[in-house]
């Protein structure tokens, strides 16, 4: 295992985060704060408690998950796409680095960054609403697993995309709607029965539900199922990455 290469890729990607601190950290924190002001303050004050939790506090796990998922996707996809776009990928491909080592470096950096953002948002939320975390270990576990899983997914998107439009296509047109419709801002019990059934086909529901359970012990689906879904999603991503690396898809001609 070429751990120095893993570390070099990781530090290189983290340095990029440092260079673009306003875009990487400040922007998601600001936009999440606006969500709290609008949904938690303005609209939330007119909504009754959800499952015994104030609406402002109820949306905190959903907002953190929203940021974690979108940031993991964009960080990891851009991290591998940009060297492909600029041509600097030649250096990685001609170095004594296995594809799995490259994945650990890129995905590790993307997941670290989104974890950082998630924790900053959690701290920011504390200024707006009272937060309790019933199961801190589970909270961290869901946070880490979701960051890694969506970073793996983002890494795949970055390999698949052959232009900037495609790079944005899945995050904007697929993932963001799934997150918004995945119970980030509501409990699925608030939906009509038919839509509740439809919503259960949205994998994001399970992630947000499990994460919210770690805070308030309330969930739309069982926590075991949530955990299983994260693991399944991660296994699917790893399998696809394995295929990419075996064939050199979009990386090697």
């Amino acid at each position, binding site marked *: 295992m*070429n*751990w*120095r*290469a893993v*570390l*070099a*890729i990781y*530090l*290189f990607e983290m*340095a*990029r985060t440092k*260079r673009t601190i306003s875009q990487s950290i400040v922007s998601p924190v600001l936009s999440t704060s606006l969500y709290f002001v609008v949904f938690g303050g303005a609209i939330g004050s007119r909504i009754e408690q959800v499952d015994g939790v104030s609406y402002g506090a109820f949306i905190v796990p959903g907002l953190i998950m929203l940021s974690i998922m979108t940031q993991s996707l964009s960080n990891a996809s851009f991290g591998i796409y940009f060297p492909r776009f*600029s*041509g*600097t990928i*030649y*250096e*990685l*491909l*001609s*170095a*004594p*680095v*296995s594809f799995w080592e490259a994945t650990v470096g890129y995905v590790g950096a993307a997941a670290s960054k989104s974890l950082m953002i998630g924790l900053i948002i959690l701290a920011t939320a504390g200024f707006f609403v009272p937060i309790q975390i019933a199961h801190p270990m589970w909270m961290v576990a869901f946070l880490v697993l979701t960051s890694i899983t969506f970073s793996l997914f983002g890494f795949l998107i970055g390999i698949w995309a052959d232009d900037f439009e495609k790079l944005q296509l899945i995050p904007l047109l697929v993932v963001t709607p799934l997150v918004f419709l995945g119970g980030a801002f509501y409990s699925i019990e608030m939906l009509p029965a038919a839509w509740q059934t439809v919503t259960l086909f949205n994998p994001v529901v399970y992630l947000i539900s499990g994460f919210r359970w770690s805070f308030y012990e309330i969930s739309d689906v069982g926590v075991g199922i949530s955990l299983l879904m994260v693991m399944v999603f991660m296994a699917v991503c790893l399998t696809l990455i394995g295929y990419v690396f075996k064939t*050199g898809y979009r990386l*090697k*001609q």
Partner: protein
Amino acid sequence: MTPVLSVQHLNKVYKDGQQALRDINLDVAKGEILALLGPNGAGKTTLISIICGIVNATSGRVRVGGFDSVTQFRQARSLIGLVPQELTTDTFETPKGSLNFSRGLFGLPPDPGKVEQVLRDLSLWDKKDNRIMTLSGGMKRRLLIAKALVHEPKVLFLDEPTAGVDVALRQDMWQMVAQLREQGVTVVLTTHYIEEAEAIADRVGVISCGKLLLVEDKYKLMASMGQKQLQVDLKTPLTELPVTLAELGFSLQNHGQQLLLGYRRDDENIAVGAMLSAIHQAGVEVADIHTVQSSLEEIFIELLQESP
């Protein structure tokens, strides 16, 4: 002696059906400088890219330092340095940071001394903390070389290293290649510039349409394929070529002021002394004589014209 680079029966067919390489076989000895010549699209970059691990071969085998480039890719690639044709750099990075990254990819610990030495050797030390986007094209080219050298490779691949660089930098690079050879580094370079191959290479390989037409010692190639021309300046212009000289293959040029005879260097039937005797016997007075040898460029063009 075991070659440091061995390519056996290498073929590459791209997805669109284009056959970029056709049964390439090539051995390169340690410390040798090999220049690969060929027109655009001949397959030079594909060959280098497969050796370095950037492109997958359709069939065939590559060994670097005795290590298989696929099954023992770590050992093989750790011996290789690659300078790509395009100026592909991390524009937001600094030269120093970029070299540290390159060392890291090769599994080497940070070595500020080595990084400084390489940057100084390539006249980039003053720019070590500048963003790469602010460097000139020539500096970026030197940076790519620095990145390829910072892990001290045993085999260096230079893909069109002097494309678009000024004369001074080109001379610097030729000097650098000579120094690397002294250190025992093997250099494989692709180039459009025949004079580059002529100036620095030990052997020349000619690729066309994915085929390696030949790999030959530079001097042997010029000796065996090079044309020579005997040019005889006359004291008094001739109005007509004497029959005896015409039978020997001479022609009359420059309004009758010069006799020309073209021949291959290895043509044993041509003896310059005998030719001069024939001229003297024909009663032609000679003012001056000189011979001209065809360049590698002319040989290259001839080879491409001969290839199917």
